[in-house]
């Protein structure tokens, strides 16, 4: 229960922090931390305009997208605190429920019959497809490491002892961040601030959404960010007492946001044709982690 509240809370200013960092980095004054949230609220108040090409799919897709993200948050624990629900193999549920959301966002993009949105959709589908194995192998290796198959059990029984486990943790964090980047379609895979529809992925998919729906989608985006932040945080919180855990959590979320901001302001987006290799590289990194785990457990004979 605690996690979902925290996630919602952090999601309020997460994107704000990113924007702020970027504007500072580029020497601008920039909007306030809560600007994105304000935008969203305004959007909720607006009316909507739908393309006459679109069908029912286009209308329900944003809702489903949003709900899946929220659903996914339910299984995320907070350190030793359980999530709202926790069961064996809940990370499978986590991944698949997000996939459901993606499915609908893709077909809603295709629903508009615009070639640009189709382009975005196909990229989105491809990249997420490549990203999934990385995530599963990563969690799998930690499941092996801890001997549990649910988020909560894994994180609560995860204690990084030797130096090698720290490197594993580091690698895991890196992979997770990257996955988060892909899922939230940020640098270096996608650039939300580009001006050319041809080079967008996520932004171009929602070109035709407006009003309430757009609001939902953006909100979902914020929550997603915070959610992944939470997972990363869980890696390091482990079974700390709440008094330490809480600030640590916030700190991690903050640094994560800043990191994203910095990356976005000092890096250029990869070429589209290079993205698949990059994403597949993540899978191999997570496989590396898996081997590391084998090393730790002395499975090598």
């Amino acid at each position: 229960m605690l996690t979902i509240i925290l996630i919602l809370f952090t999601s309020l200013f997460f994107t704000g922090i990113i924007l702020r960092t970027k504007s500072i980095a580029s020497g601008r004054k920039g909007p306030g931390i809560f600007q994105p949230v304000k935008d969203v609220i305004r959007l909720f108040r607006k009316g909507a305009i739908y393309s006459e090409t679109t069908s029912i799919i286009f209308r329900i897709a944003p809702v489903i997208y949003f709900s899946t993200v929220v659903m996914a948050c339910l299984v995320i624990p907070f350190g030793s605190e359980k999530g709202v629900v926790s069961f064996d193999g809940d990370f499978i549920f986590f991944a698949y429920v997000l996939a459901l959301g993606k499915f609908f966002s893709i077909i809603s993009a295709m629903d508009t019959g615009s070639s640009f949105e189709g382009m975005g959709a196909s990229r989105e589908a491809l990249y997420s497809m490549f990203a999934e194995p990385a995530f599963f192998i990563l969690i799998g290796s930690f499941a092996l490491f801890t001997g549990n198959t649910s988020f909560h059990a894994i994180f609560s029984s995860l204690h990084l002892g030797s130096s090698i486990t720290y490197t594993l943790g580091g690698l895991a964090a890196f992979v997770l961040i990257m996955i988060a980047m892909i899922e939230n379609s940020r640098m270096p895979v996608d650039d939300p601030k580009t001006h050319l529809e041809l080079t967008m992925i996520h932004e171009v998919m929602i070109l035709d959404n407006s009003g309430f729906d757009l609001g939902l989608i953006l909100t979902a985006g914020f929550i997603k960010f915070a959610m992944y932040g939470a997972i990363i945080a869980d890696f390091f919180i482990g079974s700390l007492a709440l008094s330490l855990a809480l600030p640590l959590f916030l700190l991690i979320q903050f640094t994560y946001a800043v990191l994203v901001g910095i990356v976005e302001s000092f890096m250029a987006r990869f070429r589209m044709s290079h993205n698949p290799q990059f994403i597949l590289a993540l899978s191999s990194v997570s496989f590396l982690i898996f081997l590391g785990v084998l090393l730790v457990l002395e499975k090598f004979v």
Partner: protein
Amino acid sequence: MINVLIIILLVAIVAILLVNTKSQGIIAVSTVIVIALLSSYVSIKALFGSSYEVIFTGTVIFGKVPVIVDALSAWFILTINFTIITGALYGFNYMKKYREKKNEITFHSIAYLLIYIALLGICSVQNGFIFLLLWELMALSAFILVIFEHEKPDTIKAGLNYLVQSHFSIVFIMLGFIYVAFKTGNFDFDAIADFSRQQSVMAGTALFLTFFIGFAIKSGFVPFHTWLPYAHPAAPSHVSGIMSGVLIKIGIYGMLRMLLLIKMDYTTVGYIILFMSIVTGIYGVMLATIQHNLKKLLAYHSVENIGIIGIGIGIGCIGLGTANKWMAILGFTGALLHTLNHSLFKSLLFYSAGNVYQAAHTLNVEKLGGLIKKMPHTAILFLLAAVAICGLPPLNGFISEFLIYGGLYNWLYSADLISLIAIVFSVGGLVLIGGLALLCFTKAFSIVFLGNSRENHHEEIIETGFWQLFPMYMTLSLMVIIGLFPNMFINALQRPVSLFTHDTVFNFNLIKVGAIDSLQTISWLFGGLIIFVLAIIGLRKIVSRKKIIETGPTWGCGYSNATSKMQYTASSYVRSYSKVAKPVLDIEKREVEVVKIFPTEKHYETDPYDKIERIFIDYPLKLVNKITDLFAFLQNGRLQAYILYGIIFISSVIIIPVVFDKIAAILHFLNNL
């Protein structure tokens, strides 16, 4: 009971031969339903305890014929019954468009009944010889069903291809039975058990692998899958539905039956099956993604799903081999449940494809589009089936895949290095399959049903009638029920699974084996998800009550008059994918590049082909032709030559042994030197 069924069948066939076309359909459907009710009654009893047994005294040649419906048979019979019924109902309405082809319809109805009986028989008969008879009866009647539209050469080609390959399968199975009979002098299934009791484990494994190949051909494991992508598009949609939903599952049944009977090195076999299945799954979905023909795409997805089922079986076997009970339970439960699930959503998908075909008279996705506005029911049904087949919540596909994942993660703890690698690759494979399926079905759905129509169809596209949609909704409802209340079905699976784990029937609710335990929670979550979605939709309604909701053209990014031709096409949707997957695929491109400043008609078309087919089918056929050509001179019409053959035969029979003796003598002499 059996006699009753046979009598009903014969009466029905005679009746069909007598009455007119319309009532033929009615008779067929009603017969199917009656038989289904009877067999379901028996099977349900078998599924919850008392299994049904009759033993006929056969002839001297093939011994006694036991007919036994145990829990495993029962599960498959029930699966078959449901799809057969929906298929019959759907087919009855589907065939209304073809009423003028009287003979074909007569033929078709009889074949439908025959294949149903054959399937039931295969699931229950326990005598190898009769099994073979029924097996081929099934193949033949399936062939008859497939070639309904026999004026098209492709249909005949597909049918023949199917027939020959299923003959290969029967050859392998036959060899298996002959081997058993050779050792034990008996054809019924007890003999197989005796065999594996007497012979070594190695022999058992060999025997199983022989059977496995036979059944793998039928159920379309890579590389034996090549008949599927031809047979399914050629057949009428309800036939594709039952073929992909039921027919290929009978192969799975065969494998499981043999697993029960034969004692073997389960671990090795498990690894073999697991490996083949992963390859099958990934290869199937990889080819599915690049297909343009909707039914062919679905056919390749059947291959993929067989792969998933196979992964389940493989895990189960390894579980048995390594005495990891929960793993075995999860594996087999997942496999069996996925068998049911796949038969549901795949038949539903084929039925929808059938509706599309009858409305638009084409299955080429590039020519379709925007159908959701014309035929909303079909679109929604297709969408939900697609969601299910991608294994996404909250539908049934997720449940079975979840169980299989559960098995894999359950394997982790008891695993050594090799099996850990195996696990990683299976998980990776399974996830990849999921991802590709998502890519593929987003493509299929959105190109066929969404956006605008890419071609103006000469006649008005209209939604199919209620009675044709009714069986589809039946299927859908069962899918939803499995998705939301999986535990009912899991409980039904206790007995079949406990046949494999060789222990007393256990109650899943009492034992706390990880994945199965969490199904309860998951069904809650699914419910929650649905409610949440509805709530938000409600909220949106409330919020945007007095807001202006208007419609306009799609935002063309500045370009004002976009046409439907400018929409994203299927090939362009998967282009980046096919570029990545080039080495595996085998796509023939034909394009006219833009040359001058004012370009003329430019065109670009791709034609996907199956690499494995090139290797395993086309090349051997070429070889056969080459060899036969070498001997074509024999019948050359020259009398002298004909006489010469006789002389050559006689003289060679006389001379060759002599020559051999001489050579042997010389060699002997040389050795002595």
